[in-house]
């Protein structure tokens, strides 16, 4: 139950390297009025991130090469359907996990 000194140094250095890109844009850009084109561009970031993350998680589980598997494909299709039908995030997640667990 102890922390090795070199491990502490490593974690602190990694945390600093992670904190800079997490904090800096939020602190700096929230202080200025951004130009309209940049606001528009930034407004598309969430949908782009979601599209990329979902596609990679479902079609490339493990992150290396395509792997088409029945459980994630069926579960994500059900999640999309439930989301479009109910517009309820929790119902969507519950359906996806349940189907993935049943088929997996």
């Amino acid at each position: 139950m102890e922390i090795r000194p070199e491990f502490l140094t490593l974690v602190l250095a990694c945390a600093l390297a992670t904190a800079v890109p997490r904090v800096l844009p939020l602190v700096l850009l929230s202080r200025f009025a951004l130009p309209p084109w940049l606001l528009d561009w930034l407004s598309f970031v969430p949908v782009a991130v979601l599209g990329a993350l979902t596609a990679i998680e479902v079609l490339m589980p493990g992150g290396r090469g395509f792997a088409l598997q029945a459980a994630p494909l069926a579960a994500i299709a059900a999640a999309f359907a439930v989301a479009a039908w109910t517009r309820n995030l929790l119902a969507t997640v519950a359906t996806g996990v349940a189907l993935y667990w049943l088929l997996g």
Partner: protein
Amino acid sequence: MKESFPQGARAALPVVLGYLGIGFAAGVVERAAGMSYAEILLLSTVLYAGSAQFVVTSMLTLGAPASAIVPTVFFLNLRHLLLSAALAPRLSGVPAWKNALLGLQLTDETFVVASARERIRPAWMAGLNVAAWSTWALANLAGAALAGLAGDPRALGFALPAMFAGLLVLQLRGRAGVAVAVCAAAAGLAIQLLQPGPWAVVGATLIGATVGLALKRWKSAPNS
């Protein structure tokens, strides 16, 4: 109040479910790599980054020096620049120290929950962050403690892609949004195929958001 700290914590529920599964898996491999409970608690609360923790653990196991691990983590987490920038307009006028604290706990998953709102109140985001962060640390410790005797936590991990799909549907407004999501998905898959690693999401986001901006500008241009 729909924007209070407890409301934010409640909005974190899908993230909490996903982190239970993934954090548990992280704890299992961290313990297997020889970390003590105190070290796992330190790693999961101070670094607090799923993919980076897996990378640190596997590089340590391979005997990599800190001079190789730290830059790898930096480039892996550089994608947060875009997420942090995208939240900035929704948190304008908030004191810098509050935004700094909120940014420290930014993850892909808390970002997608927070970005579903036009304006974000700091207390709401703090509730979201703290719920996700404490779940992550507890799941890491549980994985370390129960390594070997628990079942497969991967089904819970599917809460994350299911949540991404749900938020995608809720956030899509108009055809430009659909085009952005499809372009980003295709770009992400192509980049991931050529160069597995953290650049797929960054590249896909740059391409997707630029396509969105071009479509919006083209549509709103005066028809002369």
